[in-house]
């Protein structure tokens, strides 16, 4: 089976791009990735969650492929709520592994600012169970808040300990030109910020924003023909799922699908958590990051927030968590996020990430969540 390499990446700045639609955003990221790779994609996989509910646009594969100069190629959309981007990379990875395709472009794109917050909040809640959660008004932030309170009460974690994560994210994002929010905040700012869904506050949540990210995955066949060889390999790509409805989960303080996906990805890549230099993990809400750090094997259960308060995972530490600023501050154009993460880690391993750099990073990991822990995608990337 061929190895899979990343031959090009492209990002747009995350933000309120009132002047750009789905196609404009997708094109900007895709053109950068194609141009950087110097490879013509054979197929396109689009990662997107809400084009149907917010733009009334389906058929996104053909729509984007044939709008960005890739007329005729096979193209389709992959949807796994906020995990759509990661799932799209996973699908493209397997397409290449299968030997059928040699160069697959993945574009994650989301256009969230066409509507007011209440409408976007309803659309996002479609990640949850429509008949038994969304119907009752349980917003996505609300469902994550249920997990946050449960976790804090179970492990006696204080509000203060939870606040270190967003502070670190905002700090990391300052240097990232692609980030939506580039402003440092203090612990007190988090604790004084408006309550969105108690105990989740504004500064525990990712903002609403538009963005697109692209990565071009290629097989060994393509690499052998390139003058300038890509230096980052997708060494592990795995996905696992859990019930969409929170009610049928084993426990509210865990995301077992993350551990399952990570276990597979680690095995595929032949690495262990302690080998990893840089991670980009899904922190749509502070609690997501905390639980992921534990599920991925970077902190013991109940300890991640406490370790963060002691300075763990900051730039200079191993692993460095979310040097991009994460979903919290880089932003979270939902269906694009998983692709942003992969592109950012690729740049870290290549040494050309234009923000906080992780020196001599050899191995990186991304983890993207769809739903409140129901779709989990983990990628391990290696410098070759």
């Amino acid at each position, binding site marked *: 089976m061929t190895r899979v390499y990343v031959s090009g990446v492209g990002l747009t700045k995350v933000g309120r791009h009132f002047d750009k639609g789905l196609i404009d955003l997708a094109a900007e990221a895709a053109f950068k990735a194609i141009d950087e790779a110097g490879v013509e994609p054979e197929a396109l996989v689009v990662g997107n969650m809400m084009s149907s509910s917010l733009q009334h646009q389906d058929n996104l594969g053909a729509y984007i492929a044939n709008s960005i100069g890739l007329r005729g190629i096979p193209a389709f959309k992959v949807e796994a709520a906020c995990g759509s981007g990661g799932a799209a990379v996973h699908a493209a990875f397997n397409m290449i592994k299968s030997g059928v395709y040699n160069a697959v472009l993945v574009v994650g794109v989301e256009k969230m600012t066409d*509507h*007011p917050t*209440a*409408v976007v909040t309803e659309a996002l809640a479609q990640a949850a169970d429509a008949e038994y959660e969304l119907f009752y008004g349980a917003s996505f932030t609300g469902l994550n808040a249920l997990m946050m309170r449960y976790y804090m009460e179970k492990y006696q974690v204080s509000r203060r300990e939870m606040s270190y994560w967003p502070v670190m994210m905002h700090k990391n994002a300052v240097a990232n030109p692609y980030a939506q929010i580039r402003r440092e905040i203090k612990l007190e700012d988090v604790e004084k910020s408006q309550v969105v869904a108690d105990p989740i506050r504004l500064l525990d949540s990712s903002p609403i924003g538009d963005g697109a990210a692209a990565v071009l995955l290629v097989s060994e066949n393509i690499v052998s023909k390139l003058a300038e060889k890509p230096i980052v390999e997708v060494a592990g790509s795995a996905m696992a799922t859990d019930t969409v409805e929170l009610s049928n989960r084993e426990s509210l303080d865990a995301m077992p699908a993350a551990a399952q996906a990570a276990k597979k990805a680690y095995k595929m890549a032949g690495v262990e958590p302690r080998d990893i230099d840089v991670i980009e993990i899904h922190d749509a809400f502070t609690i997501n990051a905390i639980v992921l750090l534990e599920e991925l094997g970077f902190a013991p259960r109940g300890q991640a927030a406490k370790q963060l308060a002691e300075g763990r995972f900051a730039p200079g530490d191993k692993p460095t968590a979310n040097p991009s600023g994460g979903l919290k501050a880089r932003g979270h154009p939902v269906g694009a996020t998983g692709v942003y993460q992969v592109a950012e880690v690729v740049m870290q391993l290549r040494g050309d990430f234009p923000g906080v750099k992780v020196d001599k990073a050899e191995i990186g990991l991304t983890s993207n969540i769809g739903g409140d822990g129901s779709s989990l995608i983990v990628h391990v990337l290696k410098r070759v």
Partner: protein
Amino acid sequence: MARDSGIVSWGAYVPRYRLKAEEIVNLWGWDSNIPKNLNVAEKAVENVDEDSITMGFEAAYNAILRANINPKRIGAVFFGTESKPYAVKPSATVIAEALGVTPATMASDLEFACRAASEGLRSALALVESKYIEYGLVIGSDTAQANPGDVLEYTASSGAVAFIVGPSKEAAAILEGVYTYVTDTPDFWRRGLSPYPKHGEAFTGEPAYFSHIEGAVRGLMESLGLKPDDFDYAVFHQPNGTFPLRVGRRLGFPKEKILPGLVTPLIGNTYNASALIGFARVLEQARPGQRILVAPFGSGAGSDAYSFVVTDRVNGLRGKAPRVDDYINAKKYVSYAVHAKMRGLYRRIAN
């Protein structure tokens, strides 16, 4: 000369929220003596997620809980209301489904202003006596409307009551007789597309409330050969806190026999549940052998007068479900502004 039907069980529901009469006085610029004259200090109002169906469900749920019967044995669900959530589409089927009574049952919504549930009660008793059904479920439930600024606002309140009707050998109160008295009297009405009822003010009293209740009660006593002294309790429809006392006086019932079933001063007039919640409250304190007069009234106009005799089954039933007073006492005051939001009185537009 007891008949072969009666009340097997009862259940009530009063929403948690209360609006003080003084809020209405202040908002609409009324004379501050009005609440005292009406003998209504506050009224029960529904939460934003409540309507006559949800309230009726809870009252019926309590009645079934208290009766401890299999809901499938209920053969008729009659829902009396003048605040139907759907103008066309039965409320009774929602409740019957939620209780597990469906599908082999009669079910319908009845309309006769505040007397619809009472008509349902009469019919259900008759269906039981004729052995058409084993048990009947009768529900009275209203989120009563009043034009903001209308004096009706002091009293129009929200609440529900339900009865399981069955054979007399299972009854906590056996039916002794019933007498109905109706005429075409336009004292209070609401046209199809109107959000609020209109009424004849003073005309709602003498020719409507008083003459119909008196007609029914006198007819009942005459047919059964009973005098006011033979009754231990008298429960009348209670559009405010004073009419029931006055009609009682005119019929010869002393205040002490009326007060136990007089709930309007505490929660307002719950329309289809008005006299019937009073009846439920009386069942929660009456002793076996006591006789209860129940006389609901509905505008338009009509009244049914019932005589029930309490059996010793009543003692075992009281603690089996929340009592009327449990609901009356569990209360939380809201401002008029919050009540208006809960009721959807603000005109909002969608995003």
